[in-house]
C-alpha cells in the first residue's frame, strides 16, 4: 500500500494535471495562432460579433428564467414538505430525481411530439399557448424543459440546506412574532437557506449556459448552438467561444464559493440592514426558547 501511496502522489496528480491542462492550453493556442504569428483577433473582434452577443444574451435570459421558475417551484414545496407533509418527502425526492433517469435527448423527443400537436389544436385556445411557448425571441418551452432538468440540482442543494437549519423553530418563532406565512418564507427561511439557494441557482445557470441538445433539436439558437453553427466558417472563433464559456462557468462557480464562504452570522452582522438585525434577534430568541 505504501507503493500505491507513492504512485498516487508522484504519478497520478502530475499526469492528471497534464491531461486536464493540455486541452485548455492547446485550445487557447489554437485560437490565437495565425500563419504570421500570434493574433488575438478571435478574442478582440470575434467575441464582439452580433451572433455571439444575441445568442449569449438568450442563454443568460433563459438561465435566469429557469432559476426563477425552479426556485419558485421548489422552495415553497420543499419547505412545506419538511414542515407539514413529511409523508410526501420520499415522493418529492423520487420525482425530482426522475430527470436523471430520462436523458435530455429522450425528454426532448417527448417534447417535440407534444409540440407537434399544435396543428390539431389550431382551433382551440391552446393554440395561443403553443405560440407563446415557441416564441422565437424567448422560447418559454426551453425554460420549462430546463427547469425540469435542473430539478435534481435544486433538490439536492435545497434539501441539504433545509436539513442544516432548524426549520420548525424558525417558523414558529417568526409566526409567533406576527409574521405572515409569506413573510416567514421570504424574510426568515430564504435568508437562512441562502447558500443552498445560491448553490442550486448557480448549478442550474451553468447547466443552461452550456446546454446544446434540447435547444438544437428544437432549433433555437442559444450560445452553444451558435458556437456549433459557426464551427466550419470560423473555427478559431468557436474555440475562443468555448474558452469563454469555460471562463464563465469558472466565474459562476467562484461566485458560488465566495457567497457560500461569506455565509455566516459573523460576516452578516457588520454589513446588515434592519431586516438582518431583526432576523438575528428572532433566531436568538428562538434559540432561547429551545433552551427553555
Amino acid at each position: 500500500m505504501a507503493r500505491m501511496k507513492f504512485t498516487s502522489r508522484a504519478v497520478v496528480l502530475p499526469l492528471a494535471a497534464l491531461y486536464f491542462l493540455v486541452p485548455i492550453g492547446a485550445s487557447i493556442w489554437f485560437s490565437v495562432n495565425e500563419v504570421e504569428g500570434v493574433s488575438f483577433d478571435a478574442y478582440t473582434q470575434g467575441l464582439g460579433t452580433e451572433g455571439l452577443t444575441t445568442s449569449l444574451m438568450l442563454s443568460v435570459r433563459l438561465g435566469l428564467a429557469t432559476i426563477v421558475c425552479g426556485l419558485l417551484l421548489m422552495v415553497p414545496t420543499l419547505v412545506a414538505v419538511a414542515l407539514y407533509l413529511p409523508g410526501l418527502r420520499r415522493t418529492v425526492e423520487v420525482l425530482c430525481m426522475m430527470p436523471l433517469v430520462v436523458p435530455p435527448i429522450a425528454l426532448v423527443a417527448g417534447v417535440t411530439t407534444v409540440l407537434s400537436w399544435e396543428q390539431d389544436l389550431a382551433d382551440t385556445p391552446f393554440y395561443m399557448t403553443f405560440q407563446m411557448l415557441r416564441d422565437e425571441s424567448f422560447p418559454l418551452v426551453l425554460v420549462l424543459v430546463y427547469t425540469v432538468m435542473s430539478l435534481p440540482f435544486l433538490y439536492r442543494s435545497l434539501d441539504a440546506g433545509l436539513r442544516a437549519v432548524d426549520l420548525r423553530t424558525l417558523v414558529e418563532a417568526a409566526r409567533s412574532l406576527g409574521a405572515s406565512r409569506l413573510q416567514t418564507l421570504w424574510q426568515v427561511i430564504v435568508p437562512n437557506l441562502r447558500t443552498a439557494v445560491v448553490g442550486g441557482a448557480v448549478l442550474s445557470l451553468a447547466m443552461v449556459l452550456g446546454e446544446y441538445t434540447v435547444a438544437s433539436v428544437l432549433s433555437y439558437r442559444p450560445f452553444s448552438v451558435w458556437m456549433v453553427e459557426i464551427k466550419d466558417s470560423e473555427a478559431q472563433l468557436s474555440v475562443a467561444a468555448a474558452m469563454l464559456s469555460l471562463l464563465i462557468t469558472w466565474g459562476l462557480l467562484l461566485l458560488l464559493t465566495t457567497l457560500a464562504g461569506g455565509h455566516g452570522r459573523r460576516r452578516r452582522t457588520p454589513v446588515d440592514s434592519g431586516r438582518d438585525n431583526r432576523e438575528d434577534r428572532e433566531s436568538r430568541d428562538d434559540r432561547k426558547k429551545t433552551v427553555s
Partner: protein
Amino acid sequence: MPDQTALPAPATGPVPVAGAAAPVPPAPDVRGGGAPRRRGARRHRWPVVVPFFAFLAVCFGLPAGTMVYGAFTVLDPESGASRFSTENVSGSLSGAYATGLTGSVELSLFTALLATVIGTLIAQAVVTSPRPVLRGIVVSASGVLANFSGAPLAFAFIATLGTTGTVTQLFHLDRTGFSLYSFTGLVLAYLYFMVPLMVVTVLPALDGLRSQWQEAAASCGATRGQYWRHVGIPVLTPSLLGGAVLMFGTAFASHATAAVMVGSSQPLITIQIANALNGNVLVGQENLALAMSLNMVVIALLVMAVQIPLQRRSARWLG
C-alpha cells in the same frame, strides 16, 4: 424596532396555532398540543405543493407519457389513425439502431469504469496529501471541469487533438494513426468531465474513512493491505458503486460532446435519436425516436436500480 421583542404576546393573537404551543413550557404539553395542530394544518397546506405536482405532470409527465405512448403506436398513413404496435420498439432494437444502443452502452461502461478508478485515485491522492492548498485547487478545478461538457468541450478537444489540432500537429499524431473521431477519442473527451465529477462525488466518502479505523486495524496487527481489503474497500464499495452508476448515467445521457465531435461517424443512440427527430435520415421517424428514447430510459432505470439497495448501507458508515 427596539420594542419588537416585547411584541410577541399580543402578536400571537391572530395566530392561535403557534401561540398555543409557544407559551406552554413543559415538554409533554407541547407534544400534545403539536399533534392536532399539525394535523389541522395539513389540510390547508396541501395547496402549497400543488404547483410542483402540476408542473411536473405537464412538463415532465406529459412528454414522458407521450414518449411511451408514441413508442407503442404507429400512424396509419391512409386513414391517419394511430394503432397499437410494437414495430417501433422492435425496429429500434435491430440493425443500425441496435449497434447504436450497444455502442452507447459499451462507451458508457468503459468510461464509467475508467472514471471511477482514476477519479478515486486522484481523490485519494488529495485526501492523503498534507497540503490543504492542493485540496482546494483540485476541488475547485473539479467543480469547474465537471461542468465543462457538451459543445465547448468538443471544441477544446478538436482544437487539441483534431486533424488541425495543436497537439496533433506538434507531435505529428496523424502519422501514428490516432484519430480523435473514434471510440478512443470519445473516451478521452468524456473522461475530461467524468473524472472531475467522480472526484467531487467520492471525496466525501474518502473523507469519511476515519483514521481511527486504520489505527485500530494497525494495533490489531493488520498491514495496510489488510486494512484496505477488509475495512477500507468494503466501507467504500457502496460509494464507489454509486459513483460508477452516476458516471454511467452521465456518459449514457451525454449527447452534445459526441454530436459535435464525431457527428454520425460513431454509432451512438443519442445521436441516432437526434437525427431521427430532425428528419435527417428519413421523414416520419418520430415514433422510432420515441422508441429509442424509451430504450434509453429502461437501461438507465436498470442501472440506477443497482444503486438503491446500496444507499442504506453506505449511509450507515459514511453518513
